[in-house]
């Protein structure tokens, strides 16, 4: 007998969603974290959402996850980005209160039946009993306590052999001033896992009482927005953030001290996220730029601390101060916590299946930054997938994976597991092939039925979904049945100057709008979300149906399955790269095989031929 069928190691965004999902699927789950007072911590930017990430949050929500609800309960500010650039790239972005978010996250865990919490550092995970279906793991804490489980979800973030660094000063750290997990890496190697090392960094936090807001541009939030359809409307007052810019003087000071940066003055690995360069890197990579934006974002309702977005830095603290003081509005600024870099162990994500189970260790799952991503949303998205699959594994059911044509989550997981990552991976809308179809506004329509089938979606959420579907059909039938200017209202709506309702966002440049809801008041009984959804669907119909055709092509390739080829020692005609990929990564389908680096269409044909011949034998 095991103590808990599922043990989740980690209480970050990945661990939270994983444990909630498996417990909600009614499999008793234990979540272990080094410090339960830091569950759901946001060690970097106190922000959730933005392009690529907002879509993830909405998808997690649609599947029955928690992140959107936590965000709605705790944001200090929310805005819609890319408003006039089209629904496919429109993205919510919020800033959250760090402390409140943690509190709500912990509370969500505590409210969930079947979910237990435990504080402690895991130092070992080993297989007591091997097995494809029913393995048994022993999870050992530093003080020697042991727990047996059938499945493990590893969600340890940046903690594995984490080293914090400010210039040449370094200290063992999971993040901030928390202790790292120094023992687990070796135990993972014993399980047969391949590890690697990345770095990342964060900015200083400053005292909001020492800045001059007059010299900065103010960025207020917007009313009436939220992430989850389940959240009640949010009416609380929002906090503004502020925008200022670096100056030539800032750049000079940074340049004068470049040699002191952590990656130059120590042996720290240099595999950091490029989309989030440190101010030092900005000087080297973009020397021609005369200024860089700096955003000051409040860390919460009850603190004076501000996060200095754009100033990711690992120079000595006194130089950080010198640099900040060259920025308009910050002449007298005081730093509360200096910025730092951190490097840490992680898993090579190519070892994972699309269910986030490790290929060679049945029952062992991994999610979050430990798989090579960065970002809370990316972590949470993997968390819910790993949580669902650990539960399905324990119940002896078929795994659940999303595909590139179904969700941003599908793209994220597929990139991790078929392409692999060479630097911390962040979600972006430009990574998504079927961007016009996979929007934040239709995440529920795409995924809630799947979540329902998994039994993860509550009745309440499912009712909202069913209502939305019904109303969309009603409105479309209405539009097709009414006529205006010799066409149906449906076709009339396709014109750029026409829109269904007065709210929402109109495309740039259109001044005079014909708003259908004004003359057809029966439309006013529907909610803005539903009207906006229909608006997009009608206007983008042609594009979406073309995209659907490409999606069908894609699925056809995914459905050409590759059987176990292990007895074929050599497949004649495969390129050497193709053969290597086939052997080491064991793709499940021709489509997956073709996406692997170095594999040519020719390799796809050869393999298909081989599979056919085997079938004929």
């Amino acid at each position: 007998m095991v103590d808990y069928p599922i043990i989740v190691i980690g209480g970050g965004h990945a661990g939270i969603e994983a444990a909630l999902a498996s417990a909600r699927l009614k499999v008793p789950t234990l979540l272990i974290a080094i410090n339960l007072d830091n569950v759901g911590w946001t060690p970097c930017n106190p922000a959730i959402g933005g392009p690529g990430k907002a879509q993830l949050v909405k998808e997690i929500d649609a599947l029955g996850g928690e992140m959107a609800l936590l965000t709605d309960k705790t944001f200090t500010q929310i805005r819609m980005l890319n408003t006039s650039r089209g629904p496919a790239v429109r993205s919510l972005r919020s800033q959250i209160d760090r402390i409140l978010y943690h509190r709500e996250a912990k509370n969500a865990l505590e409210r969930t039946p079947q979910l237990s919490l435990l504080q402690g550092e895991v130092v070992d995970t080993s297989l007591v009993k091997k097995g494809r279906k029913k393995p048994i793991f022993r999870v050992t804490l530093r003080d020697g306590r042991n727990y047996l489980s059938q499945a493990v979800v590893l969600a340890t973030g940046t903690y594995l052999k984490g080293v914090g660094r400010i210039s040449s000063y370094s200290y063992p750290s999971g993040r901030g001033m928390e202790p790292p997990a120094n023992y687990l890496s070796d135990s993972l190697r014993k399980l047969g896992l391949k590890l690697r090392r990345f770095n990342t960094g964060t900015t200083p936090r400053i005292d909001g009482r020492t800045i001059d807001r007059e010299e900065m541009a103010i960025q207020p939030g917007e009313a009436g927005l939220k992430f989850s359809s389940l959240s009640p409307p949010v009416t609380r007052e929002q906090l503004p953030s502020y925008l200022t810019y670096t100056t030539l003087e800032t750049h000079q000071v940074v340049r004068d001290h470049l040699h002191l940066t952590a990656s130059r003055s120590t042996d720290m690995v240099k595999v950091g996220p490029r989309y989030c360069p440190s101010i030092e890197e900005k000087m080297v990579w973009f020397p021609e730029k005369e200024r860089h934006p700096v955003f000051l974002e409040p860390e919460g309702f009850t603190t004076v601390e501000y996060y200095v977005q754009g100033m990711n830095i690992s120079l000595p603290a006194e130089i950080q101060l010198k640099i900040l003081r060259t920025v308009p509005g910050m002449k007298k600024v005081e730093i509360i916590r200096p910025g730092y870099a951190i490097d840490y162990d992680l898993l090579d994500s190519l070892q994972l299946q699309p269910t986030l189970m490790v290929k060679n260790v049945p029952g062992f799952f991994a999610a979050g930054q430990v798989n090579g991503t960065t970002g809370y949303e990316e972590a949470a998205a993997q968390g819910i997938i790993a949580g669902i699959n650990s539960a399905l594994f324990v119940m002896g059911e078929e795994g659940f994976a999303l595909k590139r044509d179904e969700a941003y989550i599908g793209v994220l997981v597929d990139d991790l597991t078929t392409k692999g990552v060479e630097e911390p991976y962040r979600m972006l809308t430009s990574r998504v092939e079927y961007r016009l179809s996979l929007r934040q506004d239709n995440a529920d329509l795409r995924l809630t039925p799947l979540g329902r089938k998994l039994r993860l979606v509550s009745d309440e959420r499912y009712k909202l979904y069913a209502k939305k579907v019904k109303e969309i059909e009603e409105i479309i039938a209405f539009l097709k049945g009414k006529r205006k200017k010799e066409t149906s209202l449906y076709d009339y709506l396709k014109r750029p100057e026409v829109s269904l309702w007065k709210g929402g966002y109109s495309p740039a440049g259109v001044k005079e709008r014909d708003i259908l809801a004004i003359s057809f008041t029966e439309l006013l009984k529907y909610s803005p979300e539903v009207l906006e959804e229909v608006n997009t669907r009608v206007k983008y119909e042609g594009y979406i149906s073309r995209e659907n055709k490409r999606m069908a092509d894609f699925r056809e390739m995914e459905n050409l399955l590759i059987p176990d080829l292990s007895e074929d020692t050599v497949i004649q005609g495969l390129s050497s790269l193709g053969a290597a990929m086939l052997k080491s990564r064991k793709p499940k389908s021709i489509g997956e095989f073709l996406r692997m680096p170095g594999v040519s269409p020719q390799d796809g044909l050869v393999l298909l031929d081989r599979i056919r011949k085997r079938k004929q034998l």
Partner: protein
Amino acid sequence: MIVSPDEDTISAISTPIGIGAMGIVRVSGPRALAIGARVLGKNLSKLEAKKAFYGFVRNPETGNLIDEVVFLIYHAPNSYTGEDMLEIFTHGGLVAPREVLGVLLRNGARLAERGEFARRGFLNNKMDLVKAQGIIDVVDARSQKALFTSVYRLKGEASETVVSLKKKLEHILISLEATVDFPEEVDEEEKVVTDLYRVAKEMETLLKGMETSRRLRQGLKVVIIGKTNVGKSSLYNALLQEERAIVTPFPGTTRDVLESQLEYEGYPVLIYDTAGIRTSSDEIETISISRTRQAVKGADLVLLVIDGSIPLEEEDEEFFYDLKEKGGLVILNKIDLPEKIDRKIILSYGFPLMETSALKGWGIENILKKVVEMAFLSNIDLMLTDREANYLEEVLKHIRGAVENLNTLDIVGHHLREGVSQLRKILGEEPILNLTEEIFKNFCVGK
């Protein structure tokens, strides 16, 4: 893409271009028979498979005859590709197979990729890989060779224009993607819009080049016009060095449009003789006139023939509208006779004027030289193969699509992605640009 998606019906010419007395155009895919039925005007599904039938390919919109053909149908899976197939045997030469292919493409088929018939055959279990590969290799070799041994001297460096267009589009796309993915740090929206407009403008040049290249592939359409009895048919015969058209001293001799093909220094030219237009109530003549109008509509260039031995009439002058619209030359004919015409009036229209005597064969070669110069040599920097032209047309559609949707960047992004991937195909590159990589290379983004 190695698998044929549903509904995806392909077509291509299966005989070497411009060689042989016969052309074969193949269509394969679920809609092969439906598309065939449209252009052949016959229900094909009821016909017996693998048996030759006689028929006419017409443009289904206009009813115009394109070619007289023999065709065979095949039902899936009993065909070369394992799909429904149609094989059309057309007249040989340059024009007929292309026009037949053209009408198929306009009615729902898509131009097959290189070796796609063989690949489909392979995927549908109709042949093994070795055989499929062999066929693909041959197809590759043939199109390579076709490029170099083609009757026309193609200038191989088409790609320079294509490469530069691709670079520009990629750049715009990267700016766009950086803007939508990092809206707080990057705002290149204005630049995207202005650059797109600029590219759309440059497209005009490209279009001209494509036009030239189409002419090279299909023949330049030159239509002879003018009032009755000025010597149009005589000129037609002189250009062809053959007595094709009937010539009489009576006005109104030519009643229908005549077409012939000739080559001048390797450039293909299609010459059309037309009925002289004059005001009349005769019914046959009204029909003739409408045929003439149609020929003029399809012309690349017109030759306006004027009789120099009589004074200029209003009827002559009306033809200058066509000349203005289509471009071309004024041919002052019958210069062997005493001149009665006021040249100043003709010259005042500002078109090049060439003197001929169709009767004596004077000045004929000069006309051809001038025509080729005007049509081909001015735009020679972009010579494309069919395949390239086809992709490029797609690209242009996407640029237009992008420009028409400037107020929604997500749609612009869609068109640019598609356009760039077509261009990359023309150049034989991986169809997908790694956008993320490019954004990080080009923009300073992130906290």
